[in-house]
């Protein structure tokens, strides 16, 4: 059992995959993953993915970037290195705002990419699912549903049976790496 990562089935279209996913959910399987050539929001909902986290990461990073940019300008101009230019205020907040805004955007954008990658566990050099027969077409026109071996009720035979019943074109075992 431990030498198996899971069982995977290939489907020819999105609706077959969604049907299989709903059946698996209804039967109580919990450790599932689906691989598709384009975003399938319904499947993401069924698998309980919460993309909102990326937005929170980005907003937090943006706020931090803004604070950092403003505080740097304020501290350096007012305290560390004050220069009197014709009596103009040292704490020239309007002049500090352009850099503050744009640095906030910079942090938020970088955090969007990094947050997405961290939440997705990428970059990753290899993954057991990439060894599935015909998986190259997951980036073209095939839809895959995987039932992972760490599911508490995992049984390879039942998993294979479920996928076959749901109309999978091909069902294969994924060796663990």
């Amino acid at each position, binding site marked *: 059992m431990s030498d198996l990562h899971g069982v995977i089935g290939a489907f020819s279209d999105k609706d077959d995959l969604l049907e299989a996913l709903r059946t698996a959910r209804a039967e109580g399987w919990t450790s599932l993953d689906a691989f598709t*050539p384009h*975003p399938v929001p319904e499947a993401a909902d069924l698998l309980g*993915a919460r993309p909102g986290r990326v937005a929170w990461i980005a907003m937090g990073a943006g706020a931090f970037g803004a604070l950092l940019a403003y505080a740097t300008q304020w501290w350096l101009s007012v305290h560390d290195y004050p220069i009197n230019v014709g009596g103009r205020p040292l704490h020239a907040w309007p002049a500090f705002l352009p850099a503050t805004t*744009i640095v906030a955007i*910079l942090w938020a*954008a970088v955090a969007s990419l990094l947050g*997405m990658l961290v939440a*997705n566990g990428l970059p990753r050099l290899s993954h057991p699912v990439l060894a599935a027969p015909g998986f190259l077409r997951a980036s073209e*026109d095939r839809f895959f549903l995987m039932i992972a071996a760490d599911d508490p009720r995992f049984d390879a035979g039942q998993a294979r049976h479920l996928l076959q019943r749901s109309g999978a074109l091909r069902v294969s075992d994924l060796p663990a790496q």
Partner: protein
Amino acid sequence: MRPNPVAAIPLLRRFGWSFAAALGLAALGVLTLGYAVMALLLVGVGLWGTNIPFVWGFDLINYVWWIGIANAASLFASILVLRRHGLRTAVNRFAEAAALAAILAAVLYPILHLGRPWLFHWVLPYPAVYQVWPQFRSTLVWDLWGIMSHVVVTSLFWYIGLIPDLATMRDRAQARGRMVAARLYGIFALGWRGSVAHWARHQAAYRLVAALVLPMLVSAQTIVALEFATTLVPDWHQARVPLHVVLTGIPSGLGVVLALAVLLRRTLDLDRFIDDADVALLARLMAAASLACLWLYADQLLAAVLEEAETREGTFARVFGPYAALWWGALVLTSVVPQLLWLPWFRNTAPAAILIGLGAAAGVWLDRFSLVAGGLLRDHLPRIGPAYGPTTPEWTLLVGTVGLFALAMLLFARLLPVVSMFEVRHEESEAEAP
């Protein structure tokens, strides 16, 4: 398997002699750039025609121009993503690539015009040996952050959208036994495997960055314009300058995107992905943006009439003085000629659409020239000395950055999928649904 022509293009062994010729020409342009930069570093900015009061010559003209192209192309792409518009599948990828190439060309200028470009890092707030910090009340510091954010955010927007397509390229290359190509695409695909949870977060990140691009563009271009508006030069010292610079930039970027769309669908046989309706929509959008430009030019004259005498004289000197041809040329090329795109014949005829698109970009260049040089004709002090005219080293630098832009776009078309493949698949799957 349904053939995917977009993925097949970068994997072609040969691209034809015309591509090789174009690549050679662009490479020659980049060599020219290298020559211009070396001459500048060895001799100095004395090579340029700039002098008091014309301290900003070609460097600022071309910088603002390239930024305008980058902005409009990015703005267009991000709005398409946010609105989930059908046109995004056709044009987004290369609009983003054009924005990135234009910003790379733009970035060179502010660094090169510093006089001692190798000390450009002095504008960064880092603890230096002399314990001197940058002057944060200076617009130069805004410029640094503005440009840096522009480069980073534009690259991220392009790259995030590219990750799943790089995975497709990796898999297609592997299926064809092209292992080296598969390995290279694979490295940049970061191990993407198309998990639906990954897709959901990817879409969130992509749309998030698209949303961040909007304020970034407006602030970056506004910062450029504020560098003019915060001076005391009468023609520049106006609240309308940011609006003028941001909005007149749009026809230049849309013009370049339109020209690229027409060129790519012709040369790479992408009619299925970039169809007539896409080009028609893009052309009409450009005509509408030009109409907005026309309104802005009218506003410029009206504002001049209503403003105080110094401003009025400054603007009128620009519009009717020795640089008048630039202002009127800009008006015609950005605002009048693109109106032809409302007529189907002009947008359906490839050479006409390309010429009008690139013409608008040239027109905006004239507008920037008129602003930078013509705006200085009337100052608070009488002007002594000759008017500004670019010298050969300045022209060489411009030709060089055009070569850089062309080379970047050619390599992009050669090595990467020019149309967003996953968006096409997504759209097709939604079209199949009842």
